[in-house]
C-alpha cells in the first residue's frame, strides 16, 4: 500500500457511509439544505451591512457540518454546528456593537460565547428585545435557555468529554443515534438562529424583504403571535 492507496481506502469507506446515510436520512438532510438556503437569504437581505459575510460563512459552516455528518465524522460535525451558531449570534452582536466588530475584524478581540448570551446585554437579552423587537420578551428567555443548552451539549464533543469518546466508534460508519442527536441539535439551533435574527432585524426590514423571509420564519417560529403580526397574520 502506498500513501495514495491509504487515503483512497479511507475515502472509499467514507463514501459507503455517505451512501447509506443519504438513503436512510434523505428527509432530514433536505431540511438542512433548505435551512442553508434560508440563512443565505438572510445574508443577502442584510447585505450591505458588513455582518452579512459572517452569516454567509455560518451557512457554509452548516453545510460543512452536514458533509462531515454524512461521511460519519461525527465529532467534527458537532463542532462545526456549534461554530455556526456562534457565528450567527456574533454577527447579530456585532450589528449592535460596531466597535467590537471592527476590533474583531482587525483580530484584536475574540468572540466570547458568554458575552453573546449574557442575560443582561447579550443578543437574547431583554435589553435587546426592548430596543429591537418589543413584544418578543416572553419568548426570548426560552430561546436563550435553548441556545445555552444546545451549545453546552455540542461543546461536549468539541472538548472530547469522556462520554463522547465512548459514543464515537471506529472504524467510522453510519451511526443512527449520533445522526439523530446531531439532527436534534440542528433543529434547536436553527430555531434559535431564526428567532435571534428576527429579534434583531425583522422590525427594520422593508416589505419586500419581509415577504421573502415570510415562509421559513412562519414555519420555524410562527407559533409566536408577535412574529405572525409582522406578516399581517395576526388573527
Amino acid at each position: 500500500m502506498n500513501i495514495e492507496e491509504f487515503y483512497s481506502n479511507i475515502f472509499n469507506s467514507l463514501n459507503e457511509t455517505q451512501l447509506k446515510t443519504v438513503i436512510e436520512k434523505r428527509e432530514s438532510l433536505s431540511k438542512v439544505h433548505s435551512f442553508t438556503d434560508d440563512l443565505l437569504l438572510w445574508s443577502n437581505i442584510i447585505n450591505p451591512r458588513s455582518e452579512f459575510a459572517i452569516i454567509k460563512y455560518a451557512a457554509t459552516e452548516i453545510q460543512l457540518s452536514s458533509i462531515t455528518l454524512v461521511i460519519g465524522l461525527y465529532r467534527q460535525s458537532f463542532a462545526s454546528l456549534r461554530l455556526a451558531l456562534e457565528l450567527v449570534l456574533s454577527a447579530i452582536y456585532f450589528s449592535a456593537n460596531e466597535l467590537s466588530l471592527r476590533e474583531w475584524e482587525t483580530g484584536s478581540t475574540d468572540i466570547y460565547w458568554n458575552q453573546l448570551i449574557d442575560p443582561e446585554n447579550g443578543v437574547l437579552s431583554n435589553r435587546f428585545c426592548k430596543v429591537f423587537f418589543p413584544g418578543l420578551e416572553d419568548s426570548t428567555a426560552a430561546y436563550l435557555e435553548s441556545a445555552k443548552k444546545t451549545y453546552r451539549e455540542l461543546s461536549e464533543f468539541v472538548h472530547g468529554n469522556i462520554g463522547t469518546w465512548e459514543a464515537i466508534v471506529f472504524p467510522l460508519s453510519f451511526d443512527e443515534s449520533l445522526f439523530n442527536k446531531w439532527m436534534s441539535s440542528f433543529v434547536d439551533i436553527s430555531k434559535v438562529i431564526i428567532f435571534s435574527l428576527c429579534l434583531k432585524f425583522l422590525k427594520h426590514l422593508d416589505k419586500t424583504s419581509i415577504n421573502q423571509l415570510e415562509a421559513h420564519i412562519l414555519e420555524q417560529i410562527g407559533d409566536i403571535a408577535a412574529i405572525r403580526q409582522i406578516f399581517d397574520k395576526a388573527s
Partner: protein
Amino acid sequence: MPEFFFRTEDIRSENIQELYVGSDIDREIIDSLKSSQSVILEGSRGTGKSFLLRMAEVELDKDFTNAKILPVNISFVASSLIHTSDPEQFKNWMLALICNRLIRAFRKKGFFLMQSQATSLLCGNTTTDSIDNNEERFQRISKSYEESYKNVNLPISIVDLPDVISLKDAVEELCQENNISRICLLFDEAIHIFRQEQQRQFFTLFRDLRSPYINCNAAVYPGVTSYGNTFEMSHDATYLRIERDILEEGYVNRMKGIVLKQANESLITTLNQYGENFSVLAYAASGNPRMLLKTVDRCPRMRINDVNQVIKDYYRTDIWTEHTGLGIKYSGHRSLVDWGREFVEKDVLIATRQKNEIRADFQESTCYFWVHRDAPEPVKESLRMLEYTEIIRKHSESVRATNSHFGTRYELKLVGVLSLEATPTAIGLDLIKKLTIKRMTEYGMNSPRFSAIENIKIEEQTDEELRTILLAQLDRSIDVLDLSQWQKNTLKQNGYNAIRSILESSELDMQNIRYIGKVRSRQIRNATLAELLEYLSG
C-alpha cells in the same frame, strides 16, 4: 393558571400531536383528509378545523417516507385584501399561492434543488446563481394581489402563472419523477363568508385541480352560498362537519381531556374537585374547544359564582358583540344580523325557557328549534349568520315536525339557554340530563315571526361594497390603533389623522416627524396594518 393555546396557529407543529384529544369522529375526519377523497370540512369558529387540518398535515409529513404523500397546507385568510379589476383575481391569487407553497414543499423534501443558492455554495456555480427563482416569482404575484386594496387599478402581471392544466401536468411529472404518490392540498380559511365571487372561484378551482396526483381538502365556515357553475358537492367532494354532540356519551370527558392536555397541577386538582361546575362549562361551550378554553381561563378556581358569572358574561358580551359587529361591518347584511338577534333573544330563547318549565315534570327539556324548509330566504340567510357566529348550530336537516312538514332542526348553544337562569350551575346539569331532540319550538313556513324580514331583498355583497367597507376602515381615526398616547398626539399634530394617511405615506415621510425614526415609523405602520386586518378578517 397555565397559559392556554386558544388558536391552532399558536401551537408548534411538533406539539400538535401531544395536544390532540380525539374522538372517533375526529379520527375519521383526519383519516378522510389524509385519504385520496376530496373533503370539504365545515365547522364554526373555534371548533377545531385548523387543528384537524394541521394534524393531517403533521401525520402525512411524518409518514412521507412510507406513504409518499406530500401534504401542503395553504391558508386563504388574506382574501379580504384582494381588490383588483381582474375578474379572475381570486383564482389567480390562489394559483400563485398554491404554486409557491408547492415548490417550497418539494424543496423541503429534498426534491427540486436546482434553483437553490445553497446548492452552489461549496462546489461552485453549476446552474444558476440567481435567487430570482420560481418560488419567489409566485410569491410576488400573490403578494401583489394582497396589496391590491391600496390601488385597484394597478395592473398585476400574471404571465408567469400557469393555467390549471399545466399546473396539473407539472405536478404529475414531478410526482412520477420523484416517486411521490400524490399531493394532499389542505386549504384553511378557504372561503370568505361575504364574498360570493371568491367562493365561486374557489370551488371551481377545487374541482378543477383534482387529478390522480392531487387531492384537495378545504376547511370552511357554515354559510357558503355560492359554489359556482361546475362544482357539485355530491360529486366533487365528501362533505364533513365537525360535530361534538353534547348528547353523545362521554362528551364531558372528551372536552375535559382537551383542557387537561394544557392544564397544570393546580388546575387538574381544581377540575377534579369542582367536576360538576366544569361539566356545566363544558356543556355551555356546546362542543367548541376554543370557547371552553376561554371560559375556563376566566374562572380558574371553578367556584360556583365565578362559573355563573362567566357564562353570563361570555354570552352577553363576547358572543353577541361579535354577532352585532358583523352587521356593522357588512352593513348590507345589517338588517338580517339584527333580526337574527331579535329572533333568538325575544323569541326562541323565551319559548325554549317556557317549554323547559312546562316539561320539567315530564323529565324533558330542549335547546332545539325547527324552521320550515320553505321559510323565507332572508330568514335562512339570517340563520346562517347565527351559525357563523356560533349562536346556533344546524342539528339535522329534513326533520319532520308535528305538522309532518319537513324542515331543519337547529340547536341553540347551551350557553344562551343557561345564561338566562339566575344560577346556571343550579339547573344546568339537570336540564342537560333531560334534553331530548323530540321537543323543539317550531316555526312554520309563514310564521308571523318572519314577517319583519321576509321582504328584505338579499343582495350579493358586491366587491365594490366590500371595498367601501375597507376604505371606510381606512378613514377611521388613528385613535383605534394600538399606539401610545404620545405617538398618537405626535402623529395628529403632523396631519396624520386617519389610518389611511399612515398607510399611504412612506416610512421615510413619517421619519421627518421629530422623534420618529426608523423603528417607530415601522412600528406605527405595522400596528396600523394589523388593526386593519384584524377588523377585516373578523
